[in-house]
């Protein structure tokens, strides 16, 4: 609060202050004695001609903001238009109907049905809710609600009227925000050598760097300290790099990795991108107790940075909570025995209702169509069920009952042509209090042929281990990664990093190798390379990443100080049609010749550089050695003196010193049986 001008209110002089103190003291004493005798109170009023030059706004700004406004008390009121006009006899019935419709948004504390001269309701009513949030929700949900054929509710907040009233007469066009040229966000796809990028975090998490997987050595493109506070994530098409910070997420992109966007979500722990990168979902366990709004999960628009919708979540959530359809149009989660499907860009619940599915365990979207597959666990006598639901029609396109099911895992084929459900079946089930224990697990697969009429289902029984899907038997943790027709298995942690490269065309193990104590494996987006990593977060020594070719040949072992994480930058799906791909495969030989020439040139350049460096090093060293040897020669006399004239410079310098002695010692013993 700044006081303008040179005029200040007269400060109380010291004497006056002292006087006052005395008076007060006297007053206290007096009060104690008599309890009531009034003393002259000190005069605090301003002198008569004092003009206050501090505005109220400055002094009490914050209090003024809380000044009761006209709208106070009416912020939880909504006006509903389109209400049937009824007479007194049917008024109660109408009120009940209205109450039933609106009570799900909050407690109604007041309702007013204005009537005209004839006693009939005018057609519009005022409803007051307990709080504003309820009022807002009611407006959102019930606006345009069709009560019956002739009546549609039109709901508005009472305060909206003030807003609309205050719209200025002149239209002022909003000032467009200056266009931030982010450069070519997809520049990484244009790399002429088609090298992929990958991010690594090392130095215990303090440094993040981006590398180009070039041949023969990776080239560093960017490196920053403290770029992220915990770890990083790439967006599914590779356009953005997301970094985590205490206050929220930051997105970086473009050739120079400039900050593209940031999202404020305090304490964010996990994020998820929608498949087309239109939206980003973030989760934070921190909840601001003051606000009643849900805050745990927030969905943002990636490009504009706007907060679109927020949800509550159970803590800790199984991430990702929301699963997206492949075209970003829908996202869904399991919440309280229902599947809640939301649609974008409105972010409202599809059809305003969740899909009730009692006993639902898990669901997944088809990677190409808007079909939801989910499975329900078995319940006493009711068998388990796998069901396919088409969105938005909610039509069940296929269901299949399954018996003796302990667990199900759904895997979609990349093109959405097949859905494979791996069913774990049990031979025996024991019920123990609230848990059920299964024993004698065996597996079989249900394959849904999505493209055929009626979606026929095949059942396959597989025995043995060489299947290509994830097997988690016992204590081992097996991670597999698929890239088209090639799979790699990695036995993590207790299995000491055994790696197997399998060609799924014939399930042949191409190569069995190991990367001791590997914690992660990552395929590059093109399927040419695999990186196996020993992360410092899991294991404090031997931190490194090893690059393998897709056939399992080790290409490079790169040790990095306190290496934590390696992630390949994803690529968007190929723009080539299947015909194009066929053509390229046919002409492979032509292209291959070109590539070989390029590769050879690259290697020879590298070796030329190394050779030059080595020649220089050798030269320096040989010069150094010459000097040393000269010094050595000069010192020879002294050495002879120190060892009493014996020349011990080389082992053969003192031949007289040697005594020749023939020593026999046993080399081998062999027993030969001469005669039996």
């Amino acid at each position, binding site marked *: 609060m700044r006081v303008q001008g040179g005029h200040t209110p007269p400060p109380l002089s010291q004497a006056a202050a002292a006087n006052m103190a005395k008076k007060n003291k006297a007053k206290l004493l007096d009060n104690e004695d008599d309890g009531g005798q009034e003393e002259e109170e000190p005069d605090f009023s301003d002198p008569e001609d004092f003009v206050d030059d501090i505005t109220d706004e400055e002094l009490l700004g914050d209090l003024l903001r809380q000044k009761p406004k006209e709208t106070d008390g009416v912020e939880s009121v909504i006006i509903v238009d389109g209400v049937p006009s009824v007479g007194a006899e049917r008024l109660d019935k109408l009120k009940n109907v209205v109450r039933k419709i609106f009570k799900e948004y909050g407690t109604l504390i007041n309702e007013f049905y204005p009537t005209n001269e004839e006693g009939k309701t005018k057609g519009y009513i005022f409803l007051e809710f307990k709080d504003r949030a309820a009022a807002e929700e009611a407006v959102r949900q019930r606006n345009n609600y069709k009560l019956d054929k002739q009546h549609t509710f039109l709901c508005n907040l009472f305060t909206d009227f003030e807003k609309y009233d205050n719209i200025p007469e002149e239209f002022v066009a909003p000032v467009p925000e200056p266009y931030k040229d982010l450069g070519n966000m997809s520049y990484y796809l244009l790399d002429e050598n088609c090298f992929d990028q990958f991010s690594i975090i090392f130095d215990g998490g303090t440094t993040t760097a981006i590398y180009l997987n070039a041949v023969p050595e990776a080239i560093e493109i960017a490196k920053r300290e403290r770029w992220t506070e915990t770890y990083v994530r790439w967006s599914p098409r590779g356009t953005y790099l997301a970094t985590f910070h205490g206050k929220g997420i930051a997105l970086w992109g473009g050739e120079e990795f400039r900050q593209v966007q940031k999202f404020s979500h305090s304490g964010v722990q996990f994020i998820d991108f929608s498949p087309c990168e239109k939206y980003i979902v973030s989760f934070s366990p921190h909840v601001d107790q003051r606000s009643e709004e849900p805050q745990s999960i927030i969905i943002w628009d990636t490009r504009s940075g706007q907060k679109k919708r927020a949800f509550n979540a159970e803590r800790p959530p199984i991430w990702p909570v929301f699963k997206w359809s492949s075209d970003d149009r829908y996202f869904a989660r399991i919440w309280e025995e229902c599947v809640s499907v939301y649609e974008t860009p409105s972010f409202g619940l599809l059809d305003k209702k969740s899909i009730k599915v009692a006993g639902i365990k898990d669901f997944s979207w088809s990677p190409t169509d808007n079909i939801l597959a989910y499975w329900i666990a078995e319940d006493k006598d009711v068998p388990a069920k796998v069901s396919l639901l088409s969105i938005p029609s909610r039509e069940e396109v296929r269901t299949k009952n399954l018996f003796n099911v302990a667990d199900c895992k759904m895997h979609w084929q990349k093109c959405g042509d097949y859905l494979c459900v791996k069913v774990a079946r049990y031979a025996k089930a024991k019920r123990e209090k609230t848990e059920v224990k299964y024993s004698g697990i065996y597996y079989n697969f249900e394959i849904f042929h999505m493209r055929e009429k009626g979606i026929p289902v095949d059942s396959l029984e597989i025995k043995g281990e060489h299947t290509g899907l994830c097997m988690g038997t016992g204590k081992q943790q097996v991670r597999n990664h698929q890239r088209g027709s090639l799979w790699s298995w990695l036995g993590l942690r207790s299995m000491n990093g055994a790696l197997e490269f399998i060609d799924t065309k014939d399930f042949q193990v191409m190569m069995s190798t190991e990367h001791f104590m590997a914690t992660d494996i990552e395929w590059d987006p093109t399927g040419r390379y695999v990186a196996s990593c020993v992360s410092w977060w899991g294991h404090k020594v031997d931190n490194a990443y090893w690059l393998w070719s897709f056939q399992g040949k080790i290409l490079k072992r790169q040790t990095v100080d306190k290496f934590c994480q390696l992630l390949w930058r994803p690529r968007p799906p190929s723009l080539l049609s299947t015909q194009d791909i066929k053509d390229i495969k046919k002409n492979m030989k032509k292209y291959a010749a070109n590539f070989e020439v390029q590769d050879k040139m690259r290697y020879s350049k590298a070796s030329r550089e190394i050779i030059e460096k080595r020649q220089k090093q050798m030269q320096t060293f040989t010069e150094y*050695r010459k000097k040393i040897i000269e010094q050595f020669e000069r010192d020879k006399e002294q*050495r002879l003196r*120190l*060892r009493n004239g*014996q020349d011990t410079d080389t*082992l053969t310098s003192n031949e007289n010193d040697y005594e020749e002695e023939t020593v026999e010692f046993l080399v081998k013993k062999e027993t030969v049986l001469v005669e039996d």
Partner: protein
Amino acid sequence: MKPIMLQGHERSITQIKFNREGDLLFSASKDPKPNVWYSINGERLGSYDGHSGTVWCIDVKWDSSLFISGSADQTMRIWDVETGTSNTTLEMKTSVRGVSFSYSGTMIAYTTDKMMGHNSELNIIDVREPNNVDSTPIMKTQVTPTYTKALSVLWGPLDEYVVTGHEDGSIIKWDMRTGKEVGQEHSKQIKDMQLSHDGMMLITASKDTTARLWDISNLEAMKMYKTDRPVNSAAISPLVDTYPHVVMGGGQEAMDVTTTSSRIGKFDARFFHLVFEEEFARVKGHFGPINSICFHPNGRGYASGGEDGYVRVHVFDDAYYQFKFDF
């Protein structure tokens, strides 16, 4: 190359040394009896009885007549190599961590540990009369508290100075005439120091996972060899001008051994090119970290002693001599 395995110690090996001519190999371990072996076939000559604690360090005189050892039982002993009798025992206040014969063999430099109120010391004694050693040192310096404790010691090529390696990674040259010179390049404890054959270069092995090559006269660090495990010992090939190689042995600390692959013989000796600082070979075989490694004086083989208590003596085969870097 199939190595000869010497099994003669009950506990882990602390140091091994060839004599000047290379026909004998001396080994010291955490058990109190150092051994001596014929390096050609691994036959044991005998052991030296007398210490009552871990033998940390050993050295042999240039003419292979005397053998010295420093032990955790706070003594340093001088032995007759042939007979195995201990001529002299010198009592110290703390364990003796490093011993070294001078080039002439007339003096011994030794360092002691810093323990229980006693400082780490560097002492030099005169041993011209091995049977009548004057226990009063001709030079005695308190290493701590000015510097950290000295664990290894070596003589300069003409006995003009002594170089010590310390716990904080520094090496100090103690020159009687010009005073002290300090070289600091390593960040952690120096585990071993060895001289080149001509005594003009020095290699230090450190817990900071590197080994460095120094010029001894001006304490200039010339080369660095990087690994990913603490280096316990390093040696320079005597054939430094034709086969400029350096061998290093190391491994995880005993407490961390369970987390590294303890499968058969995974601890390896690593060979680096001295000039290019690049690793070119690894020899597996030990079941535990390698604690001491040294080349045979003729440059045709090497020996390594490990935490597993074994000493392995190797002879190089043709592949070693044929290997050449492109340049």
